[in-house]
């Protein structure tokens, strides 16, 4: 079975997979990479308005064969003056 390496980043902490994992094929590798995204999101949100979560799959030769990302883009609507300017309501 081919070995795949799955790297991931939550925009702050990056993990480079040095061990790899043996999988049946490309579909399983894609599944594992995508499966990591919601876990990463759950771990750090909500902690801000902008963030990018990314995963990629490398093959045995080190070539990136698949990548995916999720983007958080939050913001107060134009014209609205948030009371956040007087300091955050929730102190995280």
């Amino acid at each position, binding site marked *: 079975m081919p070995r795949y390496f799955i790297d*991931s980043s939550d925009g702050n*902490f990056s*993990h480079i*997979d040095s061990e790899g994992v043996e999988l049946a094929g490309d579909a399983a590798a894609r599944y*594992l*990479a995508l499966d*990591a995204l919601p876990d990463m999101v759950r*771990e750090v949100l909500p902690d801000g308005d902008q963030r990018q979560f990314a995963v990629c799959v490398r093959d045995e030769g080190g070539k990136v064969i698949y990548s995916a990302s999720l983007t958080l883009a939050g913001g107060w609507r134009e014209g609205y003056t948030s009371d956040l300017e007087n300091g955050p309501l929730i102190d995280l």
Partner: protein
Amino acid sequence: MRRRVLRKGEELVAQNSQPSESCIVLSGFTAREVVLADGKRQITALHIAGDFVDLHAFLLKLMDHSVVALTDCEVAYVPHRELLRVIEQSPHLGRLFWLSTVIDGAIQRAWITSSGRRAATAHLGHLICELYLRLHAVDLARDGSFAFPVAQTELADALGFSLVHVNRTLQELRATGFVRWKGSTVAIVDFDGLAALSQFDPTYLNLVKLPR
């Protein structure tokens, strides 16, 4: 009592079976598992040497989950009629069986809390603290170290994490310096630090000698 040696991956107790005996683990690691129709698996409990994994079956009759060997194991099966005899002749032993299932329930509560509310590093840290104290109580851990020969996929199924997230969490936990994990050996360098990070309070394990 019937002794049996199981290879890694074999079933000690099968889901939907109606056992006439209950199973106690003599060596190795075992897991209670629930497998969904799409093949996804949740390990709902880990059991170690000395745990009466299958006391439930004595009262439940029909098993709603299975128990599998995570490593090579030795187990012993005790016929239910013998359990009944022990309970009737020695009520205090009956209370100890009861205590064992009550503590299983307490551990389950801790796991649910970890799954639902703890951050990943705290969830894994909590599990490591728990396993260390449980193994230490049966002389299978000392000086902060214990053997935990399970695969990352099994850890993923116990924590409810994706495999990649297990890798990330192991790396993050290692970076705290509180614990080292090499091969199948877990070495806690700073138990108090790990316990604080994981908000681990050992009360639920009931590792105190009191009259029951």
